């Protein structure tokens, strides 16, 4: 049987995007749109009822994701997406809560919340779009900017050490940790699908191009050049030794799935402890506690 392609003006992701908000604010060659596409693709394949999914973002370029994905979505304050998501999840455990935000938002101003949500094994998925800079405010140095890289607030090059995000998440207690680049479409999509189905705190770092600021300040070329760099320089190594996967300026990027394990979530721990103490008198806290 042959199929004839039909011309259409409909965007293939129209069902998942707020088309009445287009055009979006992201620059051409920005990697955030790729992450949005991989996420919606993964959600579509996951079989999860999209009406039960809530997106929470903080502030910054990636923070705008919540405004474009057509799901229940919360654009909160700088750094606070994870605690907001924690409240959402605990308030209604039936919700599938996904945080999508940037490196500065999640790891600098929101860093404390990241490690504590991982420690608690809060049942949420965090997708961290890492473009190595504060892009919304004009390209300042951030907690993931590679040492020696230029930024508007490191005009002589960065002299701090960046975080190794998978190592940070894993050592804080995340049960699922992966890193991909914006070039790894299929792998990233699959990984997001796994994270969505993972019970507990899942964390995915996505290294994405920011050609407007990070690449320009570091003379790394166009968006296409950055994708070429990811192609030539990333190396898949599942379950790599995390202390060895620091990202150095324009050096090898180790990607892959690093952690995939089981551990009781915050709510599991609460229910187990209360049952021990109160026995049958205790009614488990769970999905039926969705609404007051």
């Amino acid at each position, binding site marked *: 049987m042959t199929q004839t392609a039909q011309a259409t003006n409909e965007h293939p992701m129209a069902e998942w995007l707020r088309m009445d908000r287009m055009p979006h604010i992201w620059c051409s060659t920005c990697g955030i749109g790729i992450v949005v596409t991989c996420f919606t693709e993964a959600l579509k394949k996951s079989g999860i009822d999209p009406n039960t999914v809530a997106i929470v973002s903080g502030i910054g370029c990636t923070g705008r994701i919540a405004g474009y994905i057509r799901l229940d979505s919360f654009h909160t304050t700088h750094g606070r997406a994870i605690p907001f998501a924690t409240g959402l*999840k*605990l308030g209604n455990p039936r919700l599938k809560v996904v945080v999508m935000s940037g490196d500065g938002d999640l790891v600098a101003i929101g860093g404390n919340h990241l490690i504590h949500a991982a420690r608690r094994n809060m049942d949420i998925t965090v997708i961290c779009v890492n473009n190595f800079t504060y892009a919304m405010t004009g390209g300042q140095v951030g907690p993931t900017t590679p040492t020696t890289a230029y930024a508007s607030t490191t005009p002589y090059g960065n002299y701090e050490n960046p975080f190794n995000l998978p190592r940070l998440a894993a050592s804080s207690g995340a049960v699922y940790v992966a890193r991909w680049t914006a070039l790894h479409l299929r792998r990233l999509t699959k990984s997001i699908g796994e994270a969505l189905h993972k019970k507990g705190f899942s964390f995915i770092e996505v290294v994405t191009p920011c050609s407007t600021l990070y690449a320009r300040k570091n003379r790394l070329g166009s968006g296409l050049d950055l994708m070429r760099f990811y192609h030539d320089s990333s190396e898949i190594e599942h379950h790599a030794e995390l202390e060895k996967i620091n990202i150095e300026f324009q050096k090898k990027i180790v990607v892959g799935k690093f952690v995939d394990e089981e551990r009781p979530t915050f709510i599991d721990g609460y229910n187990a402890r209360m049952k021990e103490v109160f026995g049958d008198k205790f009614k488990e806290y769970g999905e039926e506690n969705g609404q007051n």
Partner: protein
Amino acid sequence: MVPTDPQGVLTGAHFLDGDYACAEGAMAAGCRFFGGYPITPSTEVAERITQRFPMMNGIFIQMEDEMASMNAVLGAAWAGKKSMTCTSGPGFSLMMENLGLGVMLETPCVVVNVQRGGPSTGLPTLPGQADMMQARWGSHGDYEIIALSPNSPQESFDLMVDCFNLSERYRVPVLFMMDECVGHMTERVVIPSAENILVEERRYTADPPDKHLPYKADENLVPPMTPTGKGYRFHVTGLTHDERGYPVINADAQNKIVRRLVEKIRKNAADIIMLEEEQVAGADVVVLSYGISSRVVIPAVEKARSQGVKVGTMRLITVWPFPEERIREIAANVNSLVMVELNLGQVFLEMDRCARGQCKTFLVPHCGGWVHDPEDIYNVLMEAAK
């Protein structure tokens, strides 16, 4: 309003401190989410709640800091829970940015501040009433807020129910401005039966998802809530937004949203404001106070009356919004208005502004750490009566 869920109601007569009574009031009002961070002298509120929540399907989480606490409270409110946190001065400061998010997203929730002496770490174990202007103006931008202040453990219970009801009715975070004295004072607290505790249920939109505008207000200027997880696929943002909830970055949109956020409180002030007046008609001097200070005023007033001074009293149960009209009315008919508060002049400034020179105004100041000496209040009353 409907009778509350009996699971959270500890009906009967108890001997409780203000912090415990506040916790009981919250649970009686239907609060089933608490996110907080320990801080003296408010921690007992959290302790009481975490002890009692497992038996009423409530969920408690001790967050990593007060910024996280405030956000978790907002998230849980959007998930459908009546939710709260409690704190004191330093933590209250940390909550301010996200209190503003609560105002902007129009999120019902309650924040308890058991006030201690400040600034900074100040007097962790001793009383103050110096966070009153922070309660009013603490977050950036223009907004109106609701703040109530109890003067007894009984009222800590009763007013917590009002706090939750007001927050649901007006979709705004409500601040419960206690003080260390009331928080740690133990008295008889009578908790009614569940059928006698009326609570405002969350008002959700009746519109189907395809016709729904999350921020389309009703005639009361308050939009009904949008439920999460029910297919509305709605968006909310701390950015200036339109009725769809979408960001709109211009002066027109700003004018619409900020005006409505302010006016939904100002235009409904008569419904929100609770005052307790005594012998105000015919008085030469009227003393204003709130919280613990309202109890310290009593011996001073009695002594002044015994000296023939006609003194009336007004207790602000609702401090914000401020009872502007009533103060103006009284100011036109008295010689003096006197404010007694544990600070060097905060709510006094509002009283003075509303008096608009129609009468003399006096402040009985105190830096906190203890309550006023009634003699100091008496001396000001006598001066005010001249």
